């Protein structure tokens, strides 16, 4: 599944669900179905989905207007028609879908959702309306080499980490080494550069990539167990009357193989000749916002922490000095990636509900603090010693001398270096993408997935990073020059 659960939002959903439990509900008697009653009275079916998973649900321009389209939408339309009501589509993040249904904001979920034991605790699922075949994508020139599952013996094949495809490859592609990669785009990139011989993925995804790239082909390899899981419609548990009705429609859809028809119907939207930027510009724009936010928060709180640490390190009190030295050395001596995981999972271990964005901000601040501390310390050290002596000789205590005499002068030395730290933090914030904060690097990954292009989105994001940091360092240079002429 491309839709990864961001833990923070998941926790948020859980709390929503808990609230949902306490909301007044109409009688739960078996014969009555409040959900179905509501649909009947309002003459409207509200379907929730996450429109980022072509060909099932995605955004496309229909007659110049941005619309959510996809085979799931056609299925939803079919269900609404059979029930004799109007259809309303409501877009939500994937993690928020179940919570929204619990709180009655939507009546059902049609979003290529596969039932898992956790999800089945929260909702009732229809029979599967779509069983997905698993395919192996290979290079077109090798298509004839790989005909059966045994042909990959001695070769490397890729599958998405912790996916059913990974299990399938390990079980059935005998003799091959399975490389687990985080994203389908990574698998395609490795395949194109011939680092792997094949990539296992869902048939519709495979077909989309092959359609996009003429050098690739779907191999004829067939798995024995090629029907693990399937997409189902989720409804509230109390929808006891609605569920059988939906199951009847699903049966009809399956009998007539309507999903195949729907997929063909929407495939035209998927590969529209629209410019890359027009299509994905908003993803990058959102990423820029988050990246700048992360960097800003990181440097701001990093500066506060840094000043504190610097003063501790310059302190005569051995204990304070030791704490500061250990902290600074430790943070500067460990990778940011590790620190992010420490904060993200560490806070969870402590029982704190910290979402990914907050964890990212905290990790960036803690990290930046150590570097800023050294900047501040150097800035303070660069102030002439005579200034401190003059202040003390006038009867000021250490604190007053620092506050009124040393720090105001140190700031002039610190600000330019702090600006450079801001530039560094912008670049380093890309690491926060690992915990699912939708900053630039994360968005680049999303675009990789949505556009079926593994390389271009990375080039674009590198240009954006460069534009950001270059502009910023120019602005800083300008400010620095202005400041130095002012004295």
């Amino acid at each position: 599944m491309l839709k990864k659960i961001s833990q923070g939002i998941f926790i948020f959903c859980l709390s929503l669900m808990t609230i949902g439990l306490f909301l007044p509900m109409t009688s739960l008697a078996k014969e009555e179905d409040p959900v179905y009653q509501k649909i009947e009275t309002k003459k409207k079916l509200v379907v929730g989905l996450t429109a980022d998973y072509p060909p099932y649900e995605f955004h496309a321009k229909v007659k110049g207007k941005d619309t959510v389209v996809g085979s799931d939408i056609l299925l939803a339309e079919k269900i609404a028609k059979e029930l004799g009501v109007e259809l309303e589509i409501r877009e939500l993040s994937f993690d928020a879908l179940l919570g929204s249904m619990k709180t009655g904001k939507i009546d059902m979920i049609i979003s290529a959702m596969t039932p898992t034991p956790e999800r089945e605790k929260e909702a009732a699922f229809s029979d599967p309306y779509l069983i997905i075949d698993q395919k192996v994508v290979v290079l077109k020139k090798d298509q004839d080499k790989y005909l059966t599952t045994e042909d990959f013996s001695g070769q490397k094949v890729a599958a998405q980490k912790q996916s059913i495809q990974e299990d399938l490859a390990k079980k059935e592609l005998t003799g091959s080494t399975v490389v687990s990669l985080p994203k389908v785009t990574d698998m395609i990139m490795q395949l194109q550069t011939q680092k792997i011989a094949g990539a296992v993925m869902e048939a519709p995804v495979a077909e989309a990539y092959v359609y996009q790239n003429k050098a690739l082909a779907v191999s004829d390899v067939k798995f024995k167990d090629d029907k693990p899981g399937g997409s189902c419609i989720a409804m509230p548990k109390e929808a006891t009357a609605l569920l059988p009705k939906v199951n009847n429609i699903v049966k009809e859809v399956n009998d007539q193989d309507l999903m195949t028809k729907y997929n063909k119907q929407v495939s035209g939207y998927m590969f529209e000749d629209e410019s890359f930027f027009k299509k994905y510009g908003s993803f990058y724009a959102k990423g820029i916002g988050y990246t700048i936010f992360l960097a800003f928060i990181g440097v701001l709180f990093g500066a506060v922490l840094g000043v504190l640490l610097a003063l501790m390190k310059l302190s005569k009190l051995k204990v304070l000095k030791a704490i500061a030295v250990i902290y600074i050395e430790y943070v500067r001596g460990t990778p940011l990636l590790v620190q992010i995981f420490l904060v993200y999972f560490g806070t969870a271990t402590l029982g704190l509900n910290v979402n990914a964005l907050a964890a990212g901000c905290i990790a960036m601040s803690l990290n930046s603090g150590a570097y800023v501390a050294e900047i501040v310390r150097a800035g303070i050290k660069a102030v002439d010693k005579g200034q401190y002596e003059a202040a003390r000789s006038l009867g000021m205590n250490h604190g007053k001398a620092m506050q009124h005499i040393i720090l105001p002068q140190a700031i002039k030395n610190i600000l330019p270096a702090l600006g450079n730290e801001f530039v560094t933090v912008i670049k380093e914030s890309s690491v926060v993408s690992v915990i699912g904060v939708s900053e630039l690097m994360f968005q680049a990954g999303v675009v990789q997935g949505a556009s079926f292009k593994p390389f271009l989105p990375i080039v674009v994001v590198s240009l954006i990073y460069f534009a950001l940091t270059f502009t910023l360092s120019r602005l800083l240079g300008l400010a620095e020059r202005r400041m130095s002429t002012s004295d």
Partner: protein
Amino acid sequence: MINIQNIHKSFGQNEVLKGIDLTIEKGEVVVIIGPSGSGKSTFLRCLNLLEEPNEGVIEFEGKNLLDPKTDINLLRQKMGMVFQNFNLFPHKTVLENLTISPIQVKKETSAAAEKTALELLDRVGLKEKAQTYPNSLSGGQKQRVAIARALAMNPDVMLFDEPTSALDPEMVGEVLDVMKSLAESGMTMAIVTHEMGFAKEVADRVIFMDQGVIQEQGTPEEIFTQPKNPRTQNFLSKVLS
């Protein structure tokens, strides 16, 4: 007023002060001379604990400075210090240089502090520079502001650490004039300097230091005309010729 007994000070292995005893009376002007490296600046900086002596007693107005219970910040308010390199606060105006400590430390109102500051600036002939920043002043002007800044705390004693050594020759006079008038007003002063003419004219007592000890002390006439110690004779023959 200041009573110093057996001051020792080492920087690492290097013993700079090897037992100094000295008493400075109220209203007295003491000038300390000696070759560079003799420890005279270190000694002066010990008087307000910018350097902490390794052993000895420094009594100021009846209180031992080296007693950890003594509030050194309180005593420093009564000891003005003027540095070789001025050490004016470059991010503050001349007026603010004078008022910051009275306002922050003595909790004077800014109106009262400014009034005193302007009087002091007038006294050193720099009232019109009140609103400028120190970097726009000449060396002589900077040092006059530094003296006024020290006086703004209304000290009982003024310490001068080679106040004219960093100045161009033509600016030495204006600073010495200010110091001279300060001496005439009855201020207690301890001055480390190389200006022998000034020492001769203004000092009540001249102290010759070398190799970390006081070699000889006396009135200016005694030291400059009939030095007894051969080291003093040797030093004076070099600087006066």
